[in-house]
């Protein structure tokens, strides 16, 4: 990292000495979770295909041009979603540092989020119906205030989710003492 980029001249610590979140060791989520993502996409495409062909064959008055445009738009959406899943899945990773938790995902938009443990209000391990079939769980971390800051890590094995939860709670409690 180049030093000249920012001058924190009035700060008491040097920026270079700060721990870099890039150095954290990250782990991928369970591979099985990919099945759910693909399943969602297949269902979505079936729904679109059904809707458009239904309109095409059963409602003769429906303007054909709208259907054609819709078909093109929907297939583009599906193609891009497929790329997002295929390329983006390997990027879904989480990691734990001493004081915070890191989660990253996304291909078209790669997002790296870090929440310090002491800002986590509440932790929840959840399991939807499809996740239940796959025997996977998702971990939801609530921060204070607006829900936009909340973080959901989906597709974890139960033991991993529980370990993460325990770690988060333990650090939060240490802070409180």
């Amino acid at each position, binding site marked *: 990292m180049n030093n000249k980029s920012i001058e924190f*001249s009035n700060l008491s*610590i040097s920026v270079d000495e700060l721990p870099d*979140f890039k150095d954290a060791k990250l782990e991928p989520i369970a591979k099985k979770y990919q099945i759910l993502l693909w399943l969602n996409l297949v269902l979505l495409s079936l729904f679109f295909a059904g809707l458009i062909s239904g309109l095409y064959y059963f409602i003769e008055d429906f303007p054909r041009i709208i259907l054609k445009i819709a078909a093109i738009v929907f297939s583009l959406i599906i193609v891009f979603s497929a790329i997002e899943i295929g390329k983006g899945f390997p990027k879904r990773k989480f990691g734990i540092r001493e004081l915070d938790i890191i989660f990253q995902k996304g291909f*078209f938009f790669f*997002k790296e989020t870090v*929440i310090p443990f002491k800002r986590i*209000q509440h932790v929840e391990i959840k399991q939807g119906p499809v996740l239940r079939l796959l025997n996977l769980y998702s971990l939801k971390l609530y921060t204070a*205030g607006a829900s936009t*800051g909340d973080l959901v890590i989906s597709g974890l094995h139960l033991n991993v989710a529980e370990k993460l939860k325990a770690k988060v709670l333990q650090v939060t409690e240490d802070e409180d003492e």
Partner: protein
Amino acid sequence: MSNIDFSVLQRQSFNGIFLIFFADIAKQFKRFFYAIFAPFLSENFRNNYQEYLIAGIIVLVIIQFVFSYLSYLKYQFQIHKSAFIVQKGVIKRSVVEIPFHRIQNINIQQNILQQIFGVVGFQIETAGESASEIKIKALDSATANALKEALLDEVKEVVHSDETISSIEDSSPQNSSLQEDLTQEKEASTLLHLSFGRLLKVGLSSNYLKGFGLLALFIGGIGNFVNDVLSNFIEVDFEEDLVHRVPETLSFLALVVFIFTMLAFLLTVSLQVIKYFNLKVIRIKDNFEVSYGLLKRINQVIKKNKTQVVSFEYNPILRLFGINNVFVSQASASEITEKQKIGLVGITSLQFEEFFEAIFDLPFQQKFAKTQTSFRYMIVLFWKQIVIWVGFGIAGYFFINPIAGFVFAFLGLIGFTFLNYKIVSKSHVGLNEHLLKIGSGSINTKSEFVALYKIQSVQLKRSIFQRINGHADLIIYTASGSQSIPYINYNEAVELFNFMLYKVESSKLGWI
């Protein structure tokens, strides 16, 4: 002062039924406005199905009344042990429990509808940790005051006992500040009392585009309708007629544009004047009590520890008048909208200095290490806006002539490029030991200040293109929502990111 026993379940004032009913009706009306009135625009529908629709609406209104009555019956509250409890919901029952130590503030308000029914609204503000903010819509004012007294008594007690137990433990800040509120009213001083003249200046310098937008929506909505109705009564074919009288039409058009502009102008100014009428900001220690409004008088409190983001804004006209607008976002259970921010409009720079120092406990003069948004961001904005000015061009091409189309598109491109240049050159982030300053704006200039220890989480976002050209968007989450700084150099973004995390994690201060 009263003999109401709040330890048993209480209902709202009986008049509340009607208030709830009217409020619900208004809400439904707003929600379904277009669904209900769109059919009326079609002549065919008016002739054949009008009765059914009206009958349908009547049935819905009756159902709504029954529902409102039930929700009145099912809405009950009480003081139980050391908490205020509300039970509500007709189909989905829910119980909200607010422990006394979480109560930050109690507001009693009265809007026009409430004035008509002779009731007041009762609001309990909490720290915003979860959806535990409570609004009782209709209480008679004696009950409301009694309830406020009762709650404040209880809160005081809790705070006192807390103090004695945990006096060594550096008594938690929210309790002590509440205590200050309860006991000390004497140190109050007026920070800002907006005179009508200055309020008018604020109105004059507001964003007219909003007024235009509102008016356009309104006129667009009724325009169709008027055209439809008129052509029923008068035998004119509008389009035919317009072509034959081009000169007259042009002067008519100019008149319409003029009237439209004036209306938008008046609408914008009067909306602002009504909203911020008689704005008063009173300082009590480091908290500020704000009251404003002509039709609906609103009282709000800016709590020092609940404050998340302070936004300082001005535009060329405000600059000319020597005033600024300040908007404060407080911790909230849901993402704060522009409307929910507390506005201290028409504030002078000197008054803002006092406000800033009280809220942040820091001298106003702060040095920031500045990181600028890259000019590459102009390319992103260009692609986002291309539809708009190409649309202008196409409209000109088809409705007037090819040259007009070209001119429109070109003017659009020039205008947007100028705006984008302004946007990018104003977009930056400043950081120092205690504060984060986010600069943005286009014609206007906006600086948002966040204390570093209030940050909840941080995010770096990079699109495919940003990964190739080495840039990133930085997004900061606080308890009132998110702030984002677009397109900064990736290495600098990572440094900012690490530094902010370090400050949050090493800070001993809680976010509230």
